């Protein structure tokens, strides 16, 4: 493939955001080069764990603990890390990063075409007006340069293409998407919904909104996608294309235009900059196989490398005009890093449903929409809010591990499912704080000689106060649902662990306090955009991927318009 062609756009990264940028530009007739640091992913063929039964794997989907210790010291902490998904996780030994001794950070990452869109949890929720107005209302962080009205149609646009299953609820704080039919609730969830909503009129217990096809459109079927088969092994990749990933949806759409060139196994070291024109000229990439650098040029650069990597690339792209990092005249690059704080909640036994069960493996749970501080009030116990992802299940044989008993009695006991359990797991918003940062480590480099990103992200009092309410409310809702034997759980919410890390290249109205404008475009260098999580000025409490998609499609549309007008040439 020739890389000296006249590319209009270079997209850095091929995950959730990069796939959308590639599709939008390619469909609009622009020549797009997608640079992906990871290996190539052919749909189906490279879903190495798909269709493997537990007994097809020598260790039944468990990863060799020696290999975990040597190569996956961080990645194995991800709930989705298994032998059948290991090919989608980066090798920690070969790809080091740094964090303070007293500030742990779990950087969970893919290393392939498709990025984390292959093993994401598929939960898809719109933001509301409240979320975009939050920074302005309480003075933390800077004001978002956009409001819900600016993105509403873009949500509809990406949802129609991606396919989101869910139920329309008419909630102002969690606007409805363009939905495909919702997945079914269990009998226990239906009862919990009725009881919780009766006890707490401000709360809505709904089926999760998830990027799975339940009634595929003609457009989706044309791309080879079909309905969810309820195997619940999504993180291995899905040959049915039933859940949204860039590999199943956006990249094939870009590919069929003939306008996209994919360059796997090349990582971007820096953005090249021409001081005369004060524009970026392209990127310097390193071939991971030969370790040779190469300069690639284009009119416009879209950074979609993931939050940490986009920060790293911009911080590493220094020049005389940009001594502290690319497009950093504001000085805020790498600051205000955020993640959702979670790993806290409660579960209980739901009596009265012992004769009921489910059929099929639903790859989705339930959701309780945020109900605290809906008016962005500042006089409550804490600022902002949280939501709950939930699940219900009847425990089976894995519950016996670590327990007692053996023989025919044990085998007979495990023949029947245990009592229904209902679980609520809280996800809270973290405030944007200047001292939560990504910097480049002064000495440590990776094997390509690129300075390692160094993370320093800590929770504040607001998160600590919020967590008390998150736990207490979970218990109160389980009580209202009629649960017994209620137990709370709480683990240390390591930043990064929620895999919703965002910020560092924030959007804003004022070039003095933000890196990007309202179209994800660098204030300082108009032909460079960042449209992944790095662009976020705050993080709401919803899962962010749907908003990555909408902002990317919107920014690509804007950039395309600018190019057509000759403004970005």
């Amino acid at each position, binding site marked *: 493939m020739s890389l000296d062609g006249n590319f209009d756009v270079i997209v850095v990264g091929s995950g959730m955001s990069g796939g959308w940028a590639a599709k939008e530009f390619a469909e609009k007739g622009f020549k797009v080069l997608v640079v992906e640091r990871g290996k190539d992913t052919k749909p189906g063929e490279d879903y190495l764990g798909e269709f493997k*039964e*537990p*007994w097809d794997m*020598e*260790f*039944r*989907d*468990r990863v*060799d*603990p*020696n290999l975990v210790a040597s190569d996956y010291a961080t990645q194995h902490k991800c709930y989705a890390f298994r032998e059948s998904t290991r090919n989608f996780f980066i090798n920690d030994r070969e790809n080091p990063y740094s964090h303070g001794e007293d500030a742990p950070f779990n950087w969970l990452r893919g290393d392939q075409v498709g990025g984390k869109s292959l093993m994401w949890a598929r939960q898809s929720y719109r933001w509301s007006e409240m979320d975009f107005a939050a920074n302005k209302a309480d003075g933390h962080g800077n004001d978002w340069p956009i409001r819900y009205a600016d993105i509403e149609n873009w949500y509809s646009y990406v949802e129609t293409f991606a396919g989101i299953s869910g139920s329309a609820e008419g909630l102002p704080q969690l606007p409805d998407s363009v939905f495909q039919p919702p*997945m*079914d*609730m*269990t*009998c226990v*969830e*239906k009862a919990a919904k009725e009881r919780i909503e009766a006890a707490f009129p401000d709360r809505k217990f709904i089926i999760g909104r998830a990027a799975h096809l339940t009634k595929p459109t003609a457009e989706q079927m044309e791309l080879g996608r079909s309905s*969810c*088969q*309820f*195997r619940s*092994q999504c993180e291995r990749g899905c040959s049915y294309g039933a859940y949204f990933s860039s590999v199943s949806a956006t990249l094939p759409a870009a590919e069929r235009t003939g306008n996209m060139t994919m360059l796997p196994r090349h990582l971007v070291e820096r953005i090249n900059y021409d001081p005369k024109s004060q524009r970026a000229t392209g990127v310097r990439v390193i071939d991971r196989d030969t370790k040779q650098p190469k300069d690639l040029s284009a009119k416009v650069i879209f950074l979609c490398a993931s939050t940490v990597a986009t920060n790293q690339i911009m911080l590493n792209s220094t020049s005389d005009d940009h001594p502290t990092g690319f497009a950093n005249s504001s000085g805020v690059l790498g600051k205000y890093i955020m993640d959702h704080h979670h790993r806290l909640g409660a579960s209980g036994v739901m009596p009265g449903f*012992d*004769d*009921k*069960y*489910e*059929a*099929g*493996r*639903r790859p989705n749970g339930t959701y309780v929409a945020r109900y605290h501080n809906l008016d962005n009030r500042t006089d409550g116990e804490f600022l902002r809010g949280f939501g709950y992802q939930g699940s219900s299940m*009847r425990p*089976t*044989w*894995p519950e*016996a*591990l*670590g327990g*007692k*008993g*053996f*023989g*025919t009695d*044990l*085998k*007979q006991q*495990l*023949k*029947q*499912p245990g009592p229904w359990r209902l679980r609520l797991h809280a996800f809270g918003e973290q405030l944007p704080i200047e001292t939560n940062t990504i910097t480049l480590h002064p000495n440590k480099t990776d094997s390509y000689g690129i300075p390692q990103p160094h993370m320093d992200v800590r929770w504040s009092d607001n998160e600590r106060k919020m967590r008390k309410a998150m736990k207490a409310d979970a218990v109160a809702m389980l009580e209202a649902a009629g649960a017994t034997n209620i137990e709370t759980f709480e683990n240390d919410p390591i930043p990064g662990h929620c895999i919703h890390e965002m910020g560092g290249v924030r959007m804003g109205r004022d070039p003095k306090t933000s890196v990007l404008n309202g179209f994800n475009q660098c204030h300082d260098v108009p032909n460079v955009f960042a449209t992944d999580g790095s662009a976020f000025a705050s993080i709401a409490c919803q899962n962010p991927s749907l908003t990555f998609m909408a902002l990317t499609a919107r920014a690509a549309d804007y950039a395309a318009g600018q190019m057509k007008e000759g403004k970005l040439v």
Partner: protein
Amino acid sequence: MTHHTSSMDRRSLLRGSVTVAGAAIVLPSLATLGGCSSVPPTLEKSMTLISVISDRIIPETDTGGALAANVPSYIAAVYEKHFTEEQQGDFVSGLSDISGALSDAGIQFVDTAEPADVDAVLQRLDDDGNETWQLLRDLTVFGFYTSETATKELAYEEIPGRYDGCVPLAEVGSAWLARGV
């Protein structure tokens, strides 16, 4: 290759001694060792014990048990490839303690002993929270319920193709076979 030969010799020897003793119980367990593939040398002399105990943990009922599911070879593979040297040492010495407990109860040959007598010793280990017993128990439970044999024991669908959140349990008939942890 040398230890393959020696392990085959050892197994032939064991098989012979069992045949002489006239008991059949150990034969299926030896037959499941997977040819002469992969019993690590340091575990060889414990394989009979592992086979008998795993069989007592998940016995054959109207469906196959741990032996039908090749659990002993699964345990041998975990021992060989997943355990650290220290864990291997602890496991072998723990097995030797279990042998000792069986001897103390008057059981010299676990493979020919009355299952009820073996169970009585295992029950004591279970009550006492013996670590090696717990490991054997959990490896057996995990190895069995992630085997194809377990698809006969519990309800299983490879590709469900639909989701129904609320069906009568009687319609499914048993727990669904979870796909491991």
